[in-house]
């Protein structure tokens, strides 16, 4: 995989400006919204005010939620856009292996998502450090690390799932709809399996993601393996379609 090809994929994702700016502003906006709510609470109902590590966690959770949605949108678009637009055939007719063309988008997508989460994470870190602590504890280094890790890993994982769906469906609109339903509806519903069997629950993506961002008492290695496997299945299915399809 050539670095220049990955760089060009970044340019393509970043160039879809409306989507890119939404992805940049919405996670940070949601984190700021949490901060504003905390500030209002402190002014009008100090007994309900939350600060310190609680504020950091709440802002991080807001960034994660927005990150998952925006990651799903960007991922589905990255997976489907080239084929829908008819540009993939011009990439394929260079003779470059299609698998390489497809996989070059993965690091580009992850890099863009990392970049768009930076403002949200920075706002959360600054607020967590500077806002009055209230009844909470001042966040330590591990809290800050988790505040970065949590939105990032969730965004990445659901973006990769959406990316695979996009490559499979080859239509941006349909891929976005299906990926959003999968990420926000079907997969969370599937995690109800854990109410019946904890072992079966371990194999469901949202439960694995949950374990990656907080200690639920289940094995961390298993959660990591399950998350990687889910991503591999979706990205792999998209790869198979990309390699086999005619353009």
């Amino acid at each position: 995989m050539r670095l220049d090809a990955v760089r060009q994929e970044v340019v393509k994702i970043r160039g879809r400006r409306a989507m890119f700016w939404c992805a940049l502003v919405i996670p940070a906006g949601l984190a700021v919204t949490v901060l504003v709510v905390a500030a209002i609470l402190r002014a009008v109902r100090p007994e309900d005010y939350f600060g310190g590590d609680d504020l950091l966690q709440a802002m991080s959770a807001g960034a994660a939620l927005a990150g998952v949605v925006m990651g799903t949108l960007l991922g589905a678009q990255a997976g489907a856009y080239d084929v829908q637009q008819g540009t993939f055939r011009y990439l394929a007719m260079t003779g470059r292996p299609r698998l390489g063309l497809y996989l070059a988008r993965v690091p580009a997508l992850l890099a863009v998502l990392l970049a768009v989460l930076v403002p949200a994470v920075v706002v959360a870190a600054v607020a967590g450090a500077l806002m009055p602590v209230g009844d909470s504890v001042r966040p330590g280094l591990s809290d800050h690390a988790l505040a970065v890790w949590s939105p990032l890993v969730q965004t990445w994982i659901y973006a990769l799932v959406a990316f695979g769906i996009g490559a499979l469906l080859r239509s941006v609109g349909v891929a976005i709809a299906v990926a959003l339903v999968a990420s926000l509806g079907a997969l969370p519903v599937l995690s109800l399996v854990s109410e019946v069997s904890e072992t079966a629950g371990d194999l469901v993506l949202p439960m694995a993601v949950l374990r990656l961002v907080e200690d639920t008492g289940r094995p961390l290695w298993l959660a990591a393996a399950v998350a990687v496997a889910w991503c591999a299945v979706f990205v792999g299915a998209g790869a198979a379609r990309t390699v086999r399809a005619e353009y």
Partner: protein
Amino acid sequence: MDGAIIETGGLVKAFGARRAIDGVSLEVPAGVCFGFLGPNGAGKTTLIRMLLGLARPTAGWARVRGHAVPDEAPAALARVGGIVEEARFYPYLTGRQNLRAQAALLDPGAAARIPATLDRVGLAGRADERVGRYSMGMRQRLGVARALLADPELLVLDEPTNGLDPAGIAEFREMIRGMVEQEGRTVFLSSHLLDEVQRTCDHVAIVDHGRVIVQGSVRELIRSGETGMAVDADDPARARRILAALPGVRGVRERADGTLLALMSDPGREAGLAISRALAAAGVGLASLARSEESLEERFLDLTRGSTPSGPGAPPPPPPPPPS
């Protein structure tokens, strides 16, 4: 490269029961402009997609630059550029950014060729505008620029003059001829503009219902059609008898406009003089006398009118073995 730059043998592409390409064996010499003609739905684009590794043949084989496609696509397509159906781009990126995206997949020198390529297609001044704002003609030019980025030995252009105005078409024709004559590239061009193909191409293949009906040089193809002298006389019946008796005249045909066509292989000045003298001697008035040669369009219509579609069960001709 000497010899054939594109070769196919018994190439078949079926979509279910329908054969879009039905046993096509084609040989495109290197260093020429090769026109690929056919009515809509004849299978032109399907063949181009197979040559460019975008679709797999159902049967038969294809070689580009001496390498099998799609199996050896990286080697076959390394110095091939093309436009298939229409030039598609990222509309939100500039022309230059679009070319950079393509150059990243080509040889290391491709990015350095971008300014010269833009200049060549006349887009240097508009290269930093978003492609979404380009006219169709500008997109076609940018498509050619993208195809040239690979410094191609072979350019495959599918209906490349779509969207160009007459001046643009003339300019495009000059550019194609320059690529062939001055730079030694091979251009494989499909077009429904038969007049353009006649003016631009050296060789031609006519395809219909997925089959190549005829291929060869444009000149030979036109020569194999009806050539002769068109005669407009005041007494067509007598003129016809007189013309038929002249040496070198293979036959006389009445054309739709009421004039006569004396069929002859060499309708030159001598033949014209002979006809005018014979008619004058017989007292037949001559309104006009002109050399008549079938255009490629007429020849194309003659050839495609008689061709029959291949049924789904019709077996393709056995493919010759690929060259070793």
